[in-house]
């Protein structure tokens, strides 16, 4: 099966200028050689902490941020070879839902104009647009009567529904969701999560779902890619990732994420140290300064992404050991 979205060795580098003469002081490798696939109808979650490059990667996939290197194939097209017009046409099929529903809706436009803008940009008639807007608002659980209201008249959850309706205009096949519920209250989060899953089922959508909430990801995703300092360190189907995480960073993330489950609640496992600066990443494996299992080789050389089981890739020199003895992978980190 060919993937809907195929990202190969994608890199996004930002030059950093410092000093009075704005000399180039270095390069931030925000995304550095990332490969991933999203198949039709599936949800691939991208998890990691702030600064790991997950949002930059999402923007690069839509070419909202021009990649520095790599390949990007979407529905069989090589996106990086498309000119502006062709890229604009391709963007009908790949849309984005943003994190903050307060900041991502223009306060001066009515809900109908926000949702309908895509129809105008892509040259639809007025009638197509009005019909489309009414249908989309109904689809996301609002009503056609909401089209005349301004964003400030809606609650946070309703605003995110408008953001989702906007993304679904013109029948996309891929929706990139950048932390779509993290700005919402818990009781509203559940409503939006249910809506996203229902829409996926009805419309056959694929999601690239960016999140830092591992509980949510387990609920919504089919596969997970874990990023650390610009690189993917582990990719796995949901079940194997949560049952037997192989990369020490994934183990640390799972252990650190606060849980309300009684048997996990009192695990006090804390990974040491902080995320290093992407301006001067550590040598070898970028996680080695924080990793309790680091060996000499980890400091010297970046491990390759190894496939240890079907669909389960890990970037760790010692991954073979964890895979062979899964009970040892049961997080002896810290305490």
């Amino acid at each position, binding site marked *: 099966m060919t993937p809907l979205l195929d990202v190969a060795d994608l890199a996004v580098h930002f030059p950093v200028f410092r000093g009075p003469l704005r000399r180039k002081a270095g390069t931030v490798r925000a995304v550095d050689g990332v490969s991933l696939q999203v198949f039709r109808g599936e949800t691939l979650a991208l998890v990691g902490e702030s600064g790991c490059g997950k949002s930059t990667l999402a923007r690069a996939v839509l070419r909202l941020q021009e990649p520095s290197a790599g390949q990007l194939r979407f529905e069989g097209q090589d996106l990086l070879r498309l000119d502006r017009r062709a890229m604009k046409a391709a963007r009908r099929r790949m849309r984005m839902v943003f994190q903050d529903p307060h900041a991502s809706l223009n306060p001066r436009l009515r809900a109908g104009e926000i949702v309908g803008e895509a129809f105008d940009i892509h040259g639809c008639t007025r009638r197509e647009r009005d019909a489309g807007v009414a249908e989309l608002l109904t689809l996301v659980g609002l009503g056609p009567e909401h089209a005349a209201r301004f964003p400030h008249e809606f609650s946070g959850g309703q605003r995110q529904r408008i953001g989702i309706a906007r993304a679904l205009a013109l029948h996309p096949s891929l929706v990139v969701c950048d932390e779509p519920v993290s700005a919402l209250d*818990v009781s509203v989060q559940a409503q939006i*999560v249910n809506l996203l899953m*229902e829409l996926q089922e009805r419309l056959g959508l694929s999601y690239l779902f960016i999140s*830092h909430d*591992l509980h949510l990801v387990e609920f919504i995703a089919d596969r997970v890619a874990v990023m650390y300092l610009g690189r993917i360190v582990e990719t796995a189907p949901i079940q194997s990732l949560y049952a037997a995480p192989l990369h020490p960073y994934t183990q640390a993330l799972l252990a650190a994420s*606060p*849980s309300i*489950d009684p048997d996990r609640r009192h695990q006090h496992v804390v990974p040491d140290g902080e995320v290093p600066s992407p301006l001067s990443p550590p040598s070898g494996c970028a996680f080695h300064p924080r990793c309790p299992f680091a060996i000499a080789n980890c400091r010297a050389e970046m491990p390759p992404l190894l496939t240890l089981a079907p669909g389960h890739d890990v970037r760790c020199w010692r991954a073979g050991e964890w895979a062979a003895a899964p009970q040892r992978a049961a997080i002896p980190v810290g305490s």
Partner: protein
Amino acid sequence: MLSTLASAADPTPMAAPKPLIEVQDLKVHFFTRDGVVRAVDGVDYGVNPGETLGIVGESGSGKTVSSLAMLRLVPPPARTVGGRILFEGEDLLTRTPKQMAALRGRRIAMIFQNPATSLNPIYSIGAQLSEILVWHEKASRRQAEERVAELLNLVGITDPLTRLRQFPHELSGGMKQRVGIARALLCNPALVLADEPTTALDVTIQAQILELLADLQARFHMSMVLVTHDMGVVARMANRITVMYAGRVCETADAATIFSAPQHPYTRALLESMPRIDQSYSRGARQKLPTIAGRPPNLLNPPAGCRFHDRCPEAIADCRRILPVETAIAPGHTVSCIRRGSPGIAA
């Protein structure tokens, strides 16, 4: 009135200790152009010596405002319009501003949500922290800096003497929050109010900060009020939990009870609506998350009766009419729901 209890971690119930701070029927209203917003409207809770009380609720539930009221720091247009706050036997609401100033940062200290904005960017860490000791304890600059360095070391900051000369922008988010914690502990407070202390941080850093807080609290036998929207954080940290909704307390119980046998319909719904690791959601047979229909009421014009009634699956006709009053249904477990036997005030 809240009774006190032994926490789950402490299986031998002792005689109920006297609470260090007790909030009684607290009312904080915002006097806005559009009318009076009843942000905190008759709230009771208490914190025992050495324990952590977690206050959870969604945005607008009044959790932050009620904790600011304990320091008499509610910002205009809000005013504390009723109730009592008994701290070490005295009502803070009757203290003079001068008496409050002598108390803040010394007996009751606060850790703020955003470490990036709660430190002053134009003073060095050493200057802004030692100022507190100079002011409260009439310490000399030198004594103050020694004590600051000692505390920075205690909160896990390496090379504290260098850090004293640094400015907030030179520190990472996690480091800044460690400084915020050191600042709160400078005068050995009896009570620390922590308002979403880890919300602005990444999960691995959050875990480090939570561990540090728990450790320091046990070491100094402080009481702590931890205000958060994150059930996972209170699960890890709190001895007892108070759940707030729309300016009122729904339920207070020890942490284990809140998670294993919640009684108030809002507490139940809130817990059910959270995805959990380990609940093995299998693809295909994937269920939906249970949701709470509707959204929190507008506190300009709160609904009559129970404030949760229009979203509550168990609401009966009386819930629209009767405002429930918190009542104990078991030792240390109070609920305000007439369907759980709470008495009420008819509208």
